[in-house]
């Protein structure tokens, strides 16, 4: 499986944020987008997730499930956690597992374990700290298997131990032939990590 992005052009209003960006992510590879604030890292990830329409270029998941759209084969972790404060951590996770995929009890338990959430499973998400909420959000990655992970600053508010948990999960995902496209300032310490510099684009003429 291979994510191929060619000549991607994305406009926001009159500004051209991404201009002719091409890259590929092979199976078992993590591509980390780096660049200063405002370089367009989030825009690239959101475009691949199908949340922003591209003005030009192609995005394709070669060797993926031809029956499903690319966004339905990807996990998108954005800046917001997508947790309901009045539902418990487990209920939140179960909802996403069932909504995004098959969602078996085993996969939910595995996800709780992977992010050390078992002691928090029965607590409403509204009572959690910022870091705990982030872990509950990331557990979605494990609860539903999807080949492509799009991670936009996944380590925000995580402590060092939690970053290691995330790095473990990403590592296992890559070993299983998964793909990761991430934007992060904190290195995840992965073996097969490639970095792609994206620069600041000037405003369109």
């Amino acid at each position, binding site marked *: 499986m291979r994510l191929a992005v060619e000549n991607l052009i994305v406009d926001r209003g009159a500004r051209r944020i991404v201009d002719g960006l091409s890259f590929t992510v092979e199976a078992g590879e993590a591509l980390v987008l780096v660049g200063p604030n405002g370089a367009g890292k989030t825009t690239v990830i959101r475009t691949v997730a199908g949340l922003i329409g591209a003005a030009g270029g192609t995005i394709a998941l070669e060797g993926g499930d031809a029956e499903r759209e690319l966004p339905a084969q990807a996990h998108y972790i954005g800046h917001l956690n997508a947790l309901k404060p009045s539902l418990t951590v487990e209920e939140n996770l179960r909802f996403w597992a*069932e909504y995004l995929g098959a969602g078996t009890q085993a996969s939910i338990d595995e996800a709780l374990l992977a992010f050390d959430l078992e002691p928090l499973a029965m607590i409403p998400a509204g009572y959690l700290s910022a870091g705990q909420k982030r872990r509950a959000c990331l557990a979605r990655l494990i609860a539903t298997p999807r080949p492509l992970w799009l991670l936009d600053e996944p380590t925000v508010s995580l402590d060092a131990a939690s970053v290691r948990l995330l790095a473990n999960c990403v590592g296992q995902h890559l070993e299983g032939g998964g793909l990761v496209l991430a934007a992060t300032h904190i290195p995840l310490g992965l073996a097969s990590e490639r970095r792609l510099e994206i620069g600041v684009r000037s405003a369109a003429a």
Partner: protein
Amino acid sequence: MSAFWTLLKRDLLLQVREGGAVGTALGFYLVVVTMMPLGLGPDLNLLSRIAPGVLWIALLLSALLSLPRIFEADDEDGSLEVIATGDLPLELATAAKALAHWISTGIPLALLAPVLGLLLNLELSAYPVLVATMFAGTPAISFLGAVGAALTLRVRRGGLLLALLVLPLYIPTLIFGIAAISAATGGPSGVQASFLILSAISLFSLVLGPVAAAAAIRFQTQ
């Protein structure tokens, strides 16, 4: 299709856990209708003549209060974007959310209407038709309202704009809802004809509403 029911179930569960919106809508409905006899005086003939109109207009306004919540909470916490990456087409996801709104707000309002009819001296023969028209008409309120809620999703203080966008769309529902009730109490038109048109409007909005709402959400969350 199971994703549709999962989303519907979650929205209903959230309504139960968080309450708020339904209670506010029901309370508003009660207060507005109660104020009518106080404002117009105890003329029973007048009250029973205007009762269908008052019950319908107050119901539309009460439902309007709860419309912004259809998509707002999911947009604020990022759920809407994750919902968009599901296998379920966004059109069906918005349909599930509008359906949850109808079940949690439309049905309770329709059930409260006959109780409030007592306050307005509504004729006894009109009650079955009142309940029937409200059950047939309220889906249009939720599904057309979802379009307005989606259009004003990211608009600051969009509540007023939402009212301006959505209330004109409710006019057909209002006209045929009231026509059916007044026909039952000796009005000019037939009950059946008005009721069928009312149902047709609801079915029409059931199909078109989610498509328009999904398009509006895609545009807004770009």
